[in-house]
């Protein structure tokens, strides 16, 4: 187990390095000089050269990359003299456009995204998986048909259609909920909850549809397995057959999917955040791309990759806990 973990962590670090190299190359792939973008249209050639120097863009690419990596570990200072800005470790870059280290942008936006995504994940696991399981056990009944119909609608719906409808109805017409946004749960838990409710319900419902379909299919497949017949042949009660034998086996692929979903969503629930105007990571990265604010783009891409890689490791570990056939090593 320990050996496996170390092996996985080494691989994860390598993957992160690969992603960082690729994103770093973005700086050089864009047609305009980042310095030009940053300093604006009225810049003279002298200004641009100065900015480039300040950003370290006049250095060879390898040195720039080394500086960037060094910044993560030890922090770094951009420029010198009066114009110098210091960026504390872990320094993921400096957003000259907003005049702050990238990490403070992340610190501001990550909690919002995490709130949305974790809440929606809880809903999709409870409602989605629950619905799928129950409809598999009641296959062919009115309940099953209703659940399958609803989840088909949910799975084919888009957030940017469903979200604004809910927003219009619940916020602007009925006034039962405040305008969505992010308030720190530490500052005002009630407000945090009320503002998050709409994004949760929207994203949670749509993801529930996908998880209901997945878990219904998994459960039906498992119920047809020989070992479920064996469990019944032993004389176990229906409930015990379902809960101990069928569910345990059906849940494995659901855990995988849920974990990877979570990893991907933590990197930014772009559409949800945009629809509901929540300042999360997804919105920050879209803004950064629009403004060609490359340090921020790079940091958000790295962070998203980090979440996905971490969740992959977590899923693999869970897998080995659930399924004894999976030997880690």
């Amino acid at each position, binding site marked *: 187990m320990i050996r496996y973990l170390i092996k996985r962590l080494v691989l994860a670090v390598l993957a992160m390095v690969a992603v960082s190299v690729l994103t770093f190359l973005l700086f050089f792939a864009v047609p305009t000089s980042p310095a030009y973008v940053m300093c604006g249209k009225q810049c003279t050639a002298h200004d641009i050269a100065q900015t480039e120097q300040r950003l370290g863009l006049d250095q060879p690419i390898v040195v720039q990359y080394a500086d960037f990596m060094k910044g993560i570990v030890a922090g770094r200072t951009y420029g010198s003299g009066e114009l110098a800005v210091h960026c504390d470790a872990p320094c993921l870059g400096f957003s000259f456009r907003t005049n702050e280290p990238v990490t403070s942008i992340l610190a501001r936006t990550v909690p919002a995204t995490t709130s949305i995504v974790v809440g929606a994940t809880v809903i999709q696991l409870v409602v989605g998986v629950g619905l799928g399981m129950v409809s598999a056990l009641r296959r062919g009944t009115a309940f099953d048909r209703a659940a399958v119909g609803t989840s088909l609608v949910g799975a084919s719906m888009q957030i940017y259609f469903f979200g604004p409808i809910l927003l219009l109805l619940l916020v602007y017409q009925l006034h039962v909920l405040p305008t969505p946004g992010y308030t720190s749960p530490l500052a005002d838990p009630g407000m945090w909850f009320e503002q998050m409710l709409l994004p949760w319900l929207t994203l949670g419902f749509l993801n529930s549809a996908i998880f209901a379909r997945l878990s219904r299919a998994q459960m039906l497949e498992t119920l047809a397995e020989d070992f479920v017949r064996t469990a*019944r*042949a*032993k004389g*176990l009660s229906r409930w015990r057959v379902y809960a101990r034998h069928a569910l*345990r086996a059906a849940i494995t692929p659901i855990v995988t999917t849920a974990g990877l979903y979570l990893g991907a969503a933590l990197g930014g629930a772009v559409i949800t955040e945009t629809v509901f105007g929540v300042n999360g990571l997804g919105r920050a990265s879209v803004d950064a791309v629009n403004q060609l604010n490359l340090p921020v783009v790079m940091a958000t891409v790295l962070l998203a990759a980090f979440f996905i890689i971490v969740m992959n490791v977590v899923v693999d570990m869970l897998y080995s806990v659930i399924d004894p056939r999976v030997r880690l090593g």
Partner: protein
Amino acid sequence: MTATASSAATSGVADDRPYLEVDDLRVQFKTEDGIVRAVDGISFALPRGRTLGIVGESGSGKSVTSLTVMGLHNAARTRITGSIKLDGREIVGLDDEQVRRMRGRDVAMIFQDPLSALHPYYTIGKQISEAYLVHHPGRKAEARKRAIEMLDRVGIPQPKKRADQYPHEFSGGMRQRAMIAMALVNDPSLLIADEPTTALDVTVQAQILDLLEDLQREFNSAIIMITHDLGVVSQVADEVMVMYGGHAIEFGSVEQVLRSPQHPYAWGLLQSVPSLRGNAEEDLDPIPGSPPSLINLPSGCAFHPRCAYKMVGGGPCDLEVPELLPTADAGHVVACHLPENERRRVYEEEIKLGAAQ
């Protein structure tokens, strides 16, 4: 030990009366394509300590018969008529809960593929003790002891250690032994084995069959051995029932059915067994055609479209379903329109020499 001894003593007395009596059993499923008549009027009786072999191709109704005895059919889609009596007690029409209590305790089952029939996520010991605990609630320590005892009894070395291993850590033969241990943990009076050796190596097959015979002697249980392998039948069965299209078409002692079969389908089965001593160049003689659809059985004798001897006796093979009628041999019954002396002649002159005996 005392429990086994006393039950053996009482069952010894009751041996005259069959433990399992099936009378005119009919099982039908509703499907989108129509009604499947999976079992269509089957009767047999089986006392403790005896083995009945049920032989037939896939889809002949042999597995459905056993699943119905276990109450493992899908109750919502299945219609059952006729009677199944276990130790004199009618179980057709019993509610789910009553059948469940009997399952695993009075009647147990061994399945074809022990790898897929065992749960991949639980240890062998857990799965066996679970089978014991259902019928002996709350006696956890005893269940584990019993599981280890049973593993030892079915010939698994180091049973204590093996009990904590998972099915994937067992070899195929060991898995089937564990499956048998699980089935026998509650001393069932009837054991249904559905193709228990089909998924195993030939060398392991023989060991498993020997084991079943030993255990049968020890526990005095009745066994239904479902198989398409005539070799298995000849090794373990006392009586044989040949099924085709949901009907029993021949029934008798193992000698009667394997040494002097009278139904053309049974001849076909015998002829499709490869011989060890025969000519290697010679082709096997399979039964032409394929098993009939249980939704639309052929009219008359269900086998007649594939039968080389149809209408030979002038009988109404394509019109009338032949009844199971007694032959000159007591206990040997056959459902065929061919006259008996003609059947005997054909078997002696045409089949016997060619068949792999």
